[in-house]
């Protein structure tokens, strides 16, 4: 039972950085390049861990606290999401609220750490980050609520176990959550992770001044965030194979996560980054989608 | 006997019309004093069946006050103020007489409405008295000269007095005298006020007394 509960935790901790590698490979393939090795993110983090750190004279202890709190809260969020069909270690009724707010805590401290540097670029990034996430949050919660209405439960674990793609509103919810997923993880079309113009970046620009282990934590946290939100979406799609086929479920989850990464990669390589003015519209649209889904679910 | 009363009432109404129609203050005052004397006589006529010393007293007092004292006071004020004529009133003199007619009609109607039980032959009294009341009010409202307003007040008192005389017998003499004296004092006070106003403003045009507003 224990292993089952902690399975997703293990998978996430182990494979989260891999997703980034996969995405980059896909993009490279589309661009006709070889691309960086799949394990590139692991290498980067390892390198950063071994390095020392440089802190700006402007910063205070919050700058140091930012990455740690961020990583910790995304871990908590991860501990709320089970492998499909099992129960997460911290699962309880209403944990989807905690799930959303744990991500909120992560954001809060990342933003504060960015503001702590006093750099106008990082302030800009922080401003956009809070703006977009404020719009993304209702979409996320409404979507989860819709699913919850289908499943008749408020616990993520039971909720993921109970659902699979069976009804149109669930498709709408998936679309909405997909948008939220891209936005929260600062992917195209919301943000271009490997642009090199500070003015246009959102997430990357907030962490410009972090270095060494702090930066490693941030990278790891970002990768885990992808995994967490991803595994929720995947959990909604995946049919349940009952508690005892744990390995099967896990394998399925893993596979789907990789598929998700591939899809993200395809999106990133085929779409352009949206103008900042357009972003709110897309997010509001996501919210509208999930609200529509909820109304459908009241039939 | 009723015919005599009728004539007095006629005279009363006519004097009202005169007050409305005339422009020279002295003439108006003369008319007012005539009206006062008329009321004095009327007091006796109204109670000719039961002439008590009380009636005589009241009649005498009103005769003297209304007939001589008030007019005299007004004349003095005129002398001090050297204000002979009413300056152009809000309502022209001919129009005023028309209004007087209208007021008489209203008085007739109102007299019908008020259930005042009167002796025979007095049915004209109440309308006449009410006409006088309304005339007084009209003078106060429509004339600009402070003196004519004072005059209006006297006429008003006259009218009410007439009503009182015919309708109420049972008021004790003290009260009546007190009331008459009060009226007298009122006129005196107005006279003094007029004197002061004249000294302050060098005119008696109450139309220009409008600095206090809002």
């Amino acid at each position, binding site marked *: 039972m224990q292993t089952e509960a902690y399975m997703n935790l293990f998978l996430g901790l182990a494979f989260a950085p891999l997703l980034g590698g996969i995405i980059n490979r896909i993009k490279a393939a589309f661009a006709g390049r070889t691309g960086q090795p799949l394990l590139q993110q692991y290498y980067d983090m390892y390198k950063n861990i071994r390095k*020392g*750190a440089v*802190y700006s004279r*402007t*910063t*205070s202890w*919050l700058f140091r606290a930012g990455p*740690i709190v961020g990583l*910790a809260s995304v871990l*908590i969020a991860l501990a*709320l999401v089970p492998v499909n069909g099992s129960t997460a270690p*911290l699962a*309880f009724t*209403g*944990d989807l*609220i905690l799930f*959303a*707010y*744990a991500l*909120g*805590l992560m954001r*809060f401290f990342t*933003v*504060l750490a960015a*503001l*702590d*540097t*006093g750099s*106008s*670029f990082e*302030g800009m990034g*922080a*401003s956009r980050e809070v*703006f977009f996430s*404020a*719009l993304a*949050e*209702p979409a*996320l*919660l409404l979507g989860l*609520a819709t699913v*919850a*209405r289908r499943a*008749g439960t*408020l616990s993520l674990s039971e909720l993921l176990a109970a659902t699979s793609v069976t009804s149109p509103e669930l498709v709408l919810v998936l679309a909405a959550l997909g948008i939220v997923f891209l936005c929260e993880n600062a992917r195209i079309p919301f943000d271009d992770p490997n642009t090199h113009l500070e003015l246009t970046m959102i997430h990357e620009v907030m962490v*410009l001044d972090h270095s060494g*282990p*702090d930066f490693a934590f941030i990278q790891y946290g970002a990768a885990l965030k992808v995994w967490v939100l991803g595994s929720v979406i995947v959990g909604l799609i995946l049919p349940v194979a009952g508690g005892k086929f744990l390995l099967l479920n896990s394998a399925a989850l893993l596979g789907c996560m990789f598929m998700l990464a591939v899809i993200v990669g395809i999106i990133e390589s085929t779409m352009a980054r949206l103008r900042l003015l357009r972003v*709110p519209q897309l997010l509001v649209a996501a919210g509208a989608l999930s609200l529509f889904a*909820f109304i459908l679910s*009241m039939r | 006997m009723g015919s005599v009363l009728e004539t007095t009432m006629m005279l009363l109404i006519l004097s009202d019309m005169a007050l409305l129609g005339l422009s020279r203050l002295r003439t108006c005052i003369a008319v007012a004093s005539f009206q006062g004397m008329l009321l004095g006589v009327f007091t006796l006529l109204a109670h000719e069946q039961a002439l008590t010393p009380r009636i005589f007293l009241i009649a005498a007092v009103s005769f003297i006050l209304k007939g001589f004292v008030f007019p005299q006071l007004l004349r003095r004020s005129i002398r001090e103020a050297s204000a002979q004529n009413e300056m152009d009133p809000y309502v022209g003199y001919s129009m005023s007489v028309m209004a007087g007619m209208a007021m008489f009609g209203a008085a007739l109607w109102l007299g019908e*409405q008020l259930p005042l039980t009167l002796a025979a032959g007095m049915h004209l009294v109440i309308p006449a008295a009410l006409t006088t009341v309304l005339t007084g*009010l009209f003078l*106060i*409202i*429509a004339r*600009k000269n402070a003196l004519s307003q004072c005059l209006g007040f006297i006429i008003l008192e006259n009218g009410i007095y007439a009503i009182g005389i015919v309708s109420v017998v049972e008021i004790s003499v003290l009260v009546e005298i007190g009331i008459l004296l009060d009226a007298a004092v009122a006129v005196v006070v107005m006279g003094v006020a007029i004197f002061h106003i004249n000294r302050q403003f060098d005119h008696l045009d109450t*139309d220009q*007394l409008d600095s206090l*507003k809002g």
Partner: protein
Amino acid sequence: MLLLLLALGIIVISGCGALTVCTRPRLSSCIGAGGTVLGCAVGMIPALEVLLQGTIQSLRCAWSMPCGSFFIELDPLSAFFLLPVFLLSALAAVYGGQYLMKYKDTKRLGVAWFFYTLLVASMAMVCLARNAVLFLIAWEIMALASFFLVAFENEKAEVRRASWIYMVATHLGTACLLPMFLIFGAHAGSLDFDRFAHSLPQPLASICFILALIGFGTKAGIIPFHVWLPEAHPAAPSHVSALMSGIMIKTGIYGIVRMLAFLGMPALWWGWLVLAIGIISGVLGVLFALAQHDLKGLLAYHSVENIGIIMMGLGVGLIGWSAGVPSVAILGMAGGLLHVVNHAMFKGLLFLGAGSVFQAAHTREIDHLGGLIKKMPYTGACFLIGAVAISGLPPLNGFLSEFLIYLGSLRGAISMGADVAVPLIGAVAGLALIGGLAAACFTKAFGIVFLGEPRSQAAANAHESRPLMVAPMLLLAAGCLVAGFLGMYIVPAMSEVVSGILGFDAGHELKIAGGYLGSVTIASIALLLVVACLTLLRRFLLSGKEVGSGATWDCGYAAPSSRMQYSASSFAQPITDLFKIVLRTEKHLQLSEQYFPAAGAFKTHTQDAGFEKIYRPLFEGAKCLFARCAVLQHGSMHLYVLYIVITLLGLLVWLVR
């Protein structure tokens, strides 16, 4: 009960004492603050006792006043509101004792303390009174005392304006309460509350509900009756703003809840209405807060937002109640009420922090501050805790109440029919939006004020405030932190309170909710553990490596200056632009016309839409209209006499017609 009266006595007497020695600032401060603290400590005892045991103490004695009787009662609901009253009053008094010292040469502090104690006592009395006359008198004294406190710096024109707006608003609110109580009284046959319960037939009940909503809502600061908050809170001394925003506006919530208990079974549309008001107040409140440049103004608008959240809780509760879903009703009510206490704690904390900042840097302009956390570390840390708490983030207490409201509305939303589920899902969406925006607003407030580089000389010369001002903040911060971990004990303890309102037992439901909060606590503890581990890990990783320090990465720009930092207004600009339809922010841009760049200026300014769009036109219009009527009294005496005659004749005609 006698203990409670003793406490009030101590408080008031100390106030009078402070008044008598008002020529000696230090002494009067000591008397006033000391007396308040002592009285609050004494008063805390019976309140806790009642809250824990669920008993009801009441006292009814003769009071020679028409329709009045001195009837006070301490039931769990009252105790639940008394607790924060005494707690925050005491702490704010300690803080104020130090804070007011700045004015000791210019002001009569004794007077301020007199009104302060009066305010505290009257707030307690409002929670205790069980007779309409007593309640109203206490209510009015509360308004008057707070009015004088708001007008503390009355030589400033804007302060006078603020106090005027405040007094007018609260008085008009009272004007709605009078008929409400009297309608109750007319039907109950007495103005004692114990006769009120369920005494009204339906149409009247709805009328009374609306009247109560307006009357108490004005004090609570729900939109559109909120206009006085953003004026009064910045004007008042900080400890007073803390008290007013933390507790006094909650007396409005208390009134509404009390009336709901009397009105009994609500109609469904009541819940819709309250919920709608809550959502609107919450969203608009936080939006206007985002647009503020004045730190205390920002906090004031956040009071509107939090009142909105509380109202949402009550609305969810009402909907559940009228729809016959006990769990929703209980969770909603409990969440709303719990948020009352939580808000009292972190909003008090934040206002005290703002006060310290103001005294340290002599400005409340957010854009002139910065980098204060290095100058005033304790204040900064406390403010941060307050900021996290007010954003409703775990593991602090703000999350508990929002969690309950979420849980209640989700419960209803996933199980009930459309007429119930639609408003509830609206509540979920609203809470989510509010949460995100609040986080944005407080990252702005804290980040710009305390982080980065000082943006002005005053901010650069700031220094940590005196211990007596820091200590209350530390206590409140600790309170926010600890309460966040004790959800599973706090929530079940509220069962008596909630049952008292709803009339059916809430203990079981709340125990279950407490269980959920228990797992939240576990998660929070886990979070802290992980944080600790990671900190240790980083220390281990960094050990033996060189840890350098340099300038912030500025993209190679040669001469960075602190003025180049992102400012509060620029931080909030994307959001304020998105919602400009409601905010109507005015922008003033001055650019030099020459070819070569010269000094330019850009200013943004956000008026309160409610005030500008509703009340100002209303008042101006009435003024013009009435001014026209002055023509009726134009000084011409003839006209006046004419009026009299017309009146007379008119009446006569009316008589004989």
